[in-house]
């Protein structure tokens, strides 16, 4: 086993994971390792179950087969209270931000602190302002979530995710639908938070350019399998046709432009049928 060495210092290791939804197989016997202190990325086209993988790591979904260990604990064998204790050490950034819409920005960031600690309000205030300062939005603390732009909402959600000083942050499509400036801000934030706070980051994304700029290691998923893995450089030079199509964004290749259908000419000639 060549991966027994790397699993020594990996924070999350996924072993022989299989997962299906109904008839659709999402993961077919895959194994991945995410190293401590590094930024790892999971890439692949939409619908390959990248978000599902994050939910499996967070213990919100159960695998059909295989195991996931986070910091030495098998996520799906934990009891409810143990799982909740583990989750306190994980931060997750949802694609939508998932801010609580009935609370102000300040209260959103204070939410995990108020739920899980018995700190006095004065200390919570200090902590909240520090986290907001880290994402550059200390001045936005009195706004409500519906007054924020998409990029700001994601940064607030990031401040909330680091409120309890987690050991790891899971990012679900952090770059989708961002303008170039907020994209740059997020890329910078993810990188600097990871290095300054000594976090481990897992990014799920299909944004090739920005993700390879900050990731230390990349897994490329497709059709329930790992089709490529390595450092960004190795991925770029991969000889897998599939990986090349994904990285360059070619319209046709191993992933076909056309959805499976019967022959085009036959289809056009079959007059009289409605569909």
């Amino acid at each position: 086993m060549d991966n027994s060495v790397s699993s020594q210092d990996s924070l999350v290791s996924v072993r022989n994971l299989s997962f299906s939804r109904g008839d659709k197989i999402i993961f077919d016997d895959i194994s991945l390792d995410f190293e401590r202190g590094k930024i790892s990325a999971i890439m692949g086209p939409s619908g390959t179950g990248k978000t599902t993988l994050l939910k499996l790591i967070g213990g919100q979904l159960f695998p059909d087969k295989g195991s996931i260990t986070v910091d030495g604990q098998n996520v799906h064998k934990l009891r409810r209270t143990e799982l909740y204790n583990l989750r306190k050490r994980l931060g997750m950034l949802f694609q939508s931000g998932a801010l609580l819409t009935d609370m102000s920005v300040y209260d959103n960031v204070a939410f995990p602190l108020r739920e899980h600690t018995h700190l006095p309000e004065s200390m919570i205030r200090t902590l909240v302002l520090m986290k907001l300062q880290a994402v550059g939005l200390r001045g936005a603390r009195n706004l409500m979530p519906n007054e924020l732009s998409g990029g700001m909402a994601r940064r607030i959600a990031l401040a909330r995710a680091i409120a309890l000083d987690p050991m790891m942050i899971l990012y679900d499509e952090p770059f989708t639908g961002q303008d170039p400036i907020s994209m740059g801000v997020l890329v910078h934030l993810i990188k600097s938070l990871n290095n300054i706070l000594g976090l481990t980051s897992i990014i799920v994304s299909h944004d090739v350019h920005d993700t390879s700029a900050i990731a230390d290691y990349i897994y490329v998923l497709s059709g329930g399998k790992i089709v490529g893995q390595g450092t960004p450089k190795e991925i770029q030079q991969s000889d897998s046709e599939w990986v090349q199509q994904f990285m360059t964004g070619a319209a046709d290749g191993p992933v076909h432009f056309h959805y499976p259908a019967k022959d085009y000419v036959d289809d056009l000639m079959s007059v009289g049928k409605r569909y």
Partner: protein
Amino acid sequence: MIRILQYLGKSTRTSFTKLGRATYFLLQTVSGIPSVLLRPRLLLNQLYSVGVLSFLIITISGLFVGMVLGLQGYYTLSDFGAEETLGVMVAASLVRELGPVVSALLFAGRAGSALTAEIGLMKATEQLSGMEMMAVDPIKRIITPRFLAGLLAMPLLAALFSAVGIIGGQIIGSGLLGVDEGAYWSQMQASIDFHDDILNGVIKSIVFGFVTSWIALFEGSDAIPTSEGVSRATTRTVVNSAFSILGLDFILTALMFGE
């Protein structure tokens, strides 16, 4: 023929699994009650939005229902020269039936639909999932406080509905149609029994509050997380609550007042 059987089998199975999910959901909700009682602030906030904000619709509807009862009752009773018993008629119909039933129907429309839409949208915008990842149990933090609030608010709202209705009946009966005011109140006092009438009415409204909150919260958290799914769930809340309220009312009435 086979098709029909298949269809019947499939729909029976889906509705039974849904009932199972709903029961499991209820058990989870109830098991969260102790932790909510330790944080009464959560409950108070919900009592405000579920109960206090329903005040106006309940008061106004109660007043009008009482006034209609006063009018209709007077014309029927005066045929027999029994218009002095108008107070009894108005109070008995309100306390036993109309108070609990109509206020529960209004509650399902006003508060139940709002609960379903709120929970459904929280699910659609990943707020519930986000809470879970922050190690906060959404059942304890979101669902149970709303459930308890519905349970507590319903009997109070029904009582308010009946009280306002009785005043409405009095305004029409003695203010407009000339029934003796003393007779209106004293006849009522003499015939309405605390245990048989008032307590049974309160029991009814507690049952309705329980069922309506349960349906509303379950439909919300079981909703398909899209705008269409939430809108369907909201409709189902109102329809299913109305059916359950009216059906249960029949059963409870038969149990309580049938000899």
